[in-house]
Protein backbone atom coordinates (compact mmCIF):
# COMPACT_ATOMS: atom_id res chain seq x y z
CA UNK A 1 0.00 0.00 0.00
CA UNK A 2 1.38 3.32 -1.04
CA UNK A 3 0.39 6.32 0.99
CA UNK A 4 0.16 9.99 0.16
CA UNK A 5 1.15 12.27 3.00
CA UNK A 6 0.62 15.49 1.05
CA UNK A 7 -2.82 16.01 2.58
CA UNK A 8 -1.53 15.37 6.08
CA UNK A 9 1.24 17.92 5.60
CA UNK A 10 -1.10 20.55 4.13
CA UNK A 11 -3.63 20.06 6.94
CA UNK A 12 -0.88 20.26 9.57
CA UNK A 13 0.27 23.54 7.99
CA UNK A 14 -3.32 24.83 8.05
CA UNK A 15 -3.61 23.96 11.72
CA UNK A 16 -0.35 25.77 12.44
CA UNK A 17 -1.70 28.85 10.63
CA UNK A 18 -4.89 28.55 12.69
CA UNK A 19 -2.90 28.65 15.90
CA UNK A 20 -0.83 31.62 14.72
CA UNK A 21 -3.90 33.58 13.56
CA UNK A 22 -5.79 32.90 16.77
CA UNK A 23 -2.85 34.18 18.80
CA UNK A 24 -2.63 37.28 16.59
CA UNK A 25 -6.36 37.92 16.92
CA UNK A 26 -6.13 37.93 20.70
CA UNK A 27 -3.01 40.09 20.77
CA UNK A 28 -4.25 42.63 18.23
CA UNK A 29 -7.55 42.84 20.09
CA UNK A 30 -5.77 43.85 23.27
CA UNK A 31 -3.60 46.29 21.31
CA UNK A 32 -6.96 47.77 20.19
CA UNK A 33 -6.18 47.32 16.46
CA UNK A 34 -9.70 46.18 15.73
CA UNK A 35 -9.40 46.25 11.95
CA UNK A 36 -6.42 43.89 12.06
CA UNK A 37 -8.30 41.72 14.56
CA UNK A 38 -11.17 41.35 12.10
CA UNK A 39 -8.74 40.54 9.28
CA UNK A 40 -7.08 37.69 11.19
CA UNK A 41 -10.42 36.38 12.48
CA UNK A 42 -11.67 36.30 8.87
CA UNK A 43 -8.55 34.43 7.72
CA UNK A 44 -8.97 31.96 10.56
CA UNK A 45 -12.54 31.26 9.53
CA UNK A 46 -11.56 30.96 5.85
CA UNK A 47 -9.02 28.27 6.77
CA UNK A 48 -11.80 25.89 7.82
CA UNK A 49 -13.41 25.45 4.35
CA UNK A 50 -9.90 25.17 2.90
CA UNK A 51 -9.14 22.38 5.38
CA UNK A 52 -12.39 20.62 4.48
CA UNK A 53 -11.57 20.94 0.78
CA UNK A 54 -8.11 19.47 1.29
CA UNK A 55 -9.55 16.64 3.37
CA UNK A 56 -12.17 15.74 0.79
CA UNK A 57 -9.58 15.71 -1.98
CA UNK A 58 -6.91 13.83 -0.13
CA UNK A 59 -8.78 11.26 1.91
CA UNK A 60 -8.74 8.60 -0.81
CA UNK A 61 -5.32 9.34 -2.23
CA UNK A 62 -2.72 6.62 -2.16
CA UNK A 63 -5.09 3.73 -1.54
CA UNK A 64 -4.14 0.16 -2.40
CA UNK A 65 -7.22 -0.39 -4.55
CA UNK A 66 -7.15 0.73 -8.13
CA UNK A 67 -10.44 2.62 -8.12
CA UNK A 68 -9.39 4.70 -5.15
CA UNK A 69 -6.58 6.36 -7.10
Amino acid sequence: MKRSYVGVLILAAILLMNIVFTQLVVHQYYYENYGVTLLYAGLNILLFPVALFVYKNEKNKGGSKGYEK
Partner: protein
Amino acid sequence: MSDRNNKIPFDEDNYTHNINRNNERMLDRRGFMKTLAGAAGVFAVSTLPWGAVAAKELMGLGNKEYPNEKIADVKDVKVGDSVKFTFPTEHDSAILIRLSENKYVAYQNACTHLRCPVYWVKDEKEMICPCHHGKFDASTGAPTAGPPRRPLPGIEVEVKDGAIYAVRVKRYEA
Protein backbone atom coordinates in the same frame (compact mmCIF):
# COMPACT_ATOMS: atom_id res chain seq x y z
CA MET B 1 -5.45 -23.72 19.62
CA SER B 2 -8.22 -26.13 18.69
CA ASP B 3 -8.01 -28.29 21.78
CA ARG B 4 -7.69 -25.31 24.03
CA ASN B 5 -11.35 -25.26 25.02
CA ASN B 6 -11.46 -28.97 25.62
CA LYS B 7 -9.45 -28.68 28.78
CA ILE B 8 -11.60 -27.94 31.81
CA PRO B 9 -10.60 -25.56 33.19
CA PHE B 10 -8.54 -24.32 30.28
CA ASP B 11 -5.50 -22.33 31.22
CA GLU B 12 -6.26 -18.76 30.33
CA ASP B 13 -3.87 -16.00 31.12
CA ASN B 14 -6.16 -13.15 30.33
CA TYR B 15 -9.85 -12.42 30.67
CA THR B 16 -10.39 -10.66 27.39
CA HIS B 17 -9.52 -13.48 24.99
CA ASN B 18 -12.93 -13.32 23.33
CA ILE B 19 -12.86 -9.61 22.54
CA ASN B 20 -11.76 -8.86 19.04
CA ARG B 21 -10.93 -5.18 18.78
CA ASN B 22 -10.14 -5.33 15.10
CA ASN B 23 -7.94 -2.24 15.38
CA GLU B 24 -10.95 -0.02 15.85
CA ARG B 25 -9.06 2.47 18.04
CA MET B 26 -6.23 2.86 15.59
CA LEU B 27 -5.71 6.37 14.23
CA ASP B 28 -4.97 5.94 10.56
CA ARG B 29 -3.96 8.53 8.01
CA ARG B 30 -7.54 9.38 7.06
CA GLY B 31 -8.68 9.63 10.66
CA PHE B 32 -5.77 11.88 11.44
CA MET B 33 -6.66 14.18 8.56
CA LYS B 34 -10.26 14.24 9.76
CA THR B 35 -9.06 15.28 13.21
CA LEU B 36 -6.97 18.07 11.71
CA ALA B 37 -9.89 19.39 9.65
CA GLY B 38 -12.11 19.27 12.74
CA ALA B 39 -9.52 21.18 14.74
CA ALA B 40 -9.49 23.85 12.02
CA GLY B 41 -13.26 24.13 12.51
CA VAL B 42 -12.85 24.52 16.26
CA PHE B 43 -10.32 27.31 15.72
CA ALA B 44 -12.64 29.04 13.24
CA VAL B 45 -15.52 28.99 15.71
CA SER B 46 -13.33 30.10 18.59
CA THR B 47 -12.27 33.30 16.81
CA LEU B 48 -15.87 34.32 16.09
CA PRO B 49 -16.47 36.07 19.45
CA TRP B 50 -13.21 38.02 19.13
CA GLY B 51 -14.21 39.18 15.67
CA ALA B 52 -17.68 40.12 16.91
CA VAL B 53 -16.33 42.18 19.81
CA ALA B 54 -13.77 43.85 17.53
CA ALA B 55 -16.50 44.71 15.02
CA LYS B 56 -18.57 46.16 17.83
CA GLU B 57 -15.64 48.35 18.89
CA LEU B 58 -15.07 49.43 15.29
CA MET B 59 -18.68 50.51 14.97
CA GLY B 60 -18.10 52.81 17.93
CA LEU B 61 -20.35 51.08 20.41
CA GLY B 62 -17.50 50.68 22.89
CA ASN B 63 -16.69 54.37 23.40
CA LYS B 64 -19.83 56.17 24.34
CA GLU B 65 -19.91 59.84 23.55
CA TYR B 66 -21.73 62.31 25.73
CA PRO B 67 -22.24 66.00 25.16
CA ASN B 68 -19.41 68.01 26.70
CA GLU B 69 -20.34 69.47 30.03
CA LYS B 70 -18.95 72.60 31.56
CA ILE B 71 -17.63 71.93 35.07
CA ALA B 72 -16.34 75.31 36.20
CA ASP B 73 -14.43 78.38 35.15
CA VAL B 74 -10.66 78.18 35.48
CA LYS B 75 -10.54 81.28 37.65
CA ASP B 76 -12.85 79.72 40.23
CA VAL B 77 -10.64 76.67 40.81
CA LYS B 78 -7.39 77.33 42.61
CA VAL B 79 -4.49 74.88 42.46
CA GLY B 80 -5.20 72.08 44.94
CA ASP B 81 -8.93 72.72 44.96
CA SER B 82 -11.66 70.33 43.92
CA VAL B 83 -15.08 70.81 42.37
CA LYS B 84 -18.00 68.42 42.50
CA PHE B 85 -20.02 67.85 39.38
CA THR B 86 -22.02 65.14 37.69
CA PHE B 87 -21.07 63.40 34.45
CA PRO B 88 -22.36 61.98 32.16
CA THR B 89 -25.79 61.94 33.83
CA GLU B 90 -26.98 63.74 36.91
CA HIS B 91 -26.82 60.48 38.86
CA ASP B 92 -23.09 59.96 38.29
CA SER B 93 -21.39 62.20 40.77
CA ALA B 94 -17.85 63.14 39.91
CA ILE B 95 -15.00 65.22 41.24
CA LEU B 96 -12.52 67.52 39.51
CA ILE B 97 -9.16 68.24 41.11
CA ARG B 98 -6.69 70.85 39.95
CA LEU B 99 -3.36 69.25 40.80
CA SER B 100 -1.15 71.99 39.38
CA GLU B 101 -1.36 75.03 37.18
CA ASN B 102 -2.20 73.05 34.06
CA LYS B 103 -3.01 69.61 35.37
CA TYR B 104 -6.64 68.73 35.92
CA VAL B 105 -7.90 65.27 36.79
CA ALA B 106 -11.48 64.14 37.15
CA TYR B 107 -13.01 60.89 38.36
CA GLN B 108 -16.43 59.51 38.93
CA ASN B 109 -16.21 59.57 42.69
CA ALA B 110 -18.36 56.62 43.68
CA CYS B 111 -15.90 54.49 45.65
CA THR B 112 -15.20 51.19 43.89
CA HIS B 113 -15.78 49.38 47.16
CA LEU B 114 -19.37 50.25 48.12
CA ARG B 115 -20.01 53.42 46.12
CA CYS B 116 -19.70 55.97 48.90
CA PRO B 117 -18.72 59.39 47.56
CA VAL B 118 -14.96 59.84 47.58
CA TYR B 119 -13.78 63.35 48.44
CA TRP B 120 -10.53 65.26 48.06
CA VAL B 121 -8.47 66.08 51.15
CA LYS B 122 -6.35 69.02 50.14
CA ASP B 123 -3.91 68.83 53.07
CA GLU B 124 -3.08 65.17 52.59
CA LYS B 125 -3.20 65.26 48.78
CA GLU B 126 -5.36 62.16 48.72
CA MET B 127 -8.86 61.15 47.81
CA ILE B 128 -10.53 59.50 50.76
CA CYS B 129 -13.67 57.44 51.03
CA PRO B 130 -15.34 58.24 54.37
CA CYS B 131 -17.10 54.90 54.76
CA HIS B 132 -14.14 52.55 55.22
CA HIS B 133 -11.15 54.85 54.78
CA GLY B 134 -10.32 53.74 51.29
CA LYS B 135 -7.74 56.00 49.70
CA PHE B 136 -7.10 56.76 46.04
CA ASP B 137 -4.12 58.29 44.29
CA ALA B 138 -5.22 61.61 42.85
CA SER B 139 -3.06 61.54 39.71
CA THR B 140 -4.11 58.07 38.51
CA GLY B 141 -7.26 57.15 40.44
CA ALA B 142 -5.64 53.92 41.60
CA PRO B 143 -6.55 52.63 45.06
CA THR B 144 -3.70 53.02 47.55
CA ALA B 145 -5.24 51.94 50.85
CA GLY B 146 -8.33 50.40 52.37
CA PRO B 147 -10.86 48.00 50.89
CA PRO B 148 -11.25 49.27 47.28
CA ARG B 149 -9.31 47.19 44.74
CA ARG B 150 -10.23 48.88 41.45
CA PRO B 151 -9.32 52.38 40.25
CA LEU B 152 -11.91 55.12 40.01
CA PRO B 153 -13.22 55.60 36.46
CA GLY B 154 -11.43 58.59 34.97
CA ILE B 155 -13.06 61.42 33.09
CA GLU B 156 -11.23 63.25 30.34
CA VAL B 157 -11.28 66.99 30.84
CA GLU B 158 -10.49 69.81 28.45
CA VAL B 159 -9.77 73.45 29.10
CA LYS B 160 -11.38 75.72 26.55
CA ASP B 161 -11.88 79.49 26.65
CA GLY B 162 -11.14 79.78 30.36
CA ALA B 163 -13.54 77.05 31.36
CA ILE B 164 -13.14 73.36 32.16
CA TYR B 165 -15.24 70.83 30.31
CA ALA B 166 -15.84 67.13 30.90
CA VAL B 167 -15.37 65.41 27.54
CA ARG B 168 -15.80 61.66 28.01
CA VAL B 169 -15.47 58.82 30.44
CA LYS B 170 -12.17 57.02 29.92
CA ARG B 171 -12.16 53.38 28.87
CA TYR B 172 -12.07 51.17 31.91
CA GLU B 173 -8.91 49.10 31.84
CA ALA B 174 -8.87 46.32 34.37
